[in-house]
């Protein structure tokens, strides 16, 4: 016999049988189905347990007689709640506090949705920004008079001059690169257009200075690609 099976689900009427009929009172069909899973002793054991527990509970119900008089604290609580509700009727906006959690969830979701929409709109604006005709900004800056080092010893003057030359060269080279790298996010065609404009500016400034363009491998590369 297998009492370990979940018999109330396997034999749907078993609970009812245990309550109403002893093993000897079972008819043939009931007996057949019960005997598949339980022996007579097991059936009687379950039945006795069920009956004793129910008897016990019934006698407990008779013996325990709680007071059915309403506690004044409960009436007080009801009246306090009444006052709170009056406040809510005066300020209907506060009713949102009465809403169960889903209302808050809806509000949160809507807020999140709007934030996302606004964020994407801002991104779109950035994307559709027109390419400026000229991206150079000329500003007049007053050069503050500084110590030119005329009075310093000749060795120091020579060192300063070399350092300035190096810095200028480096600046010229890095300037173009940096401009290219610092281009804002935009589509490839716009990026290429910008690169072309930047390179043209660079070539013009080289020519103005009377320098040889072939000395700059980046510009040579650009000219070859452009042609």
């Amino acid at each position, binding site marked *: 016999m297998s009492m370990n099976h*979940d018999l109330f*689900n396997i034999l749907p009427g078993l609970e009812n049988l245990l309550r109403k009929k002893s093993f000897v009172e079972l008819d043939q069909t009931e007996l057949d189905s019960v005997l598949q899973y339980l022996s007579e002793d097991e059936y009687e054991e379950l039945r*006795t*347990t069920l009956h004793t527990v129910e008897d016990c509970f019934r006698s407990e119900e008779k013996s325990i007689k709680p007071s*059915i008089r309403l506690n004044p*604290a*409960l009436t007080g609580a009801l009246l306090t*709640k009444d006052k709170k509700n009056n406040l809510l009727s005066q300020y209907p906006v506060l009713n949102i506090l009465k809403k169960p959690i889903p209302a808050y969830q809806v509000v949160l979701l809507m807020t999140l949705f709007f934030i996302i929409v606004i964020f994407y709109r801002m991104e779109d604006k950035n994307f559709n920004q027109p390419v400026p005709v000229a991206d150079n900004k000329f500003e007049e800056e007053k050069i503050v008079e500084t110590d030119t080092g005329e009075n310093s010893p000749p060795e120091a003057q020579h060192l300063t001059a070399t350092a300035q030359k190096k810095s200028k060269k480096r600046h010229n080279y890095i300037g173009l690169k940096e401009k290219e790298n610092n281009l804002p996010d935009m589509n490839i065609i716009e990026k290429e257009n910008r690169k072309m404009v930047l390179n043209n500016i660079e070539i013009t400034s080289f020519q103005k200075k009377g320098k040889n363009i072939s000395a700059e491998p980046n510009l040579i590369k650009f000219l070859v690609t452009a042609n």
Partner: protein
Amino acid sequence: MTLIQAKKEHALEELYKRYSPKMNLYFCRMFYGDYEKGKDFTHDLFLKVIEKASYFNTGMNFSTWLYTLASNMCKNEFKKERIRNDTSFPSQSSNFQEDYERQIDMQSFNEELYIALKEIDYEHKTAFLLRYGSELSIKEIACILDCPEGTVKSRLYYTIKYLSKKLTIYKQS
């Protein structure tokens, strides 16, 4: 319940008169025969009814809703007890007034029963007490415990099986 929602005092009184004895017994059994604790919890339950009156769906069975609140209260209390690790067994405070001998038998059986129930987990115990203590239908219990009817049946069967192995007093008698 609609009247409670409309803050009518006499409606609360009527509900209390109808349901407080049942709820008192339910709590008393859930807390292994601790009658005083049962009384306190019944009071708290009705406070909850007042507080949450606006959440009650008038199309729903009030008794089922009340038992759901009560079961949740017990669940929370058991969680707290587990934290406190309070294993003290409450004294039997039921005041049986019937046949004295029968009372002694039943009291000892009661004690055995509550000791056995203390070893069963919350879900099995609640299903068992709602079915055989409060005499609710399987469907109602499934609704209160928020689980399928099959699960309730299974819990009932295994609890009875466990108790029949555990309770020896009635076998001797």
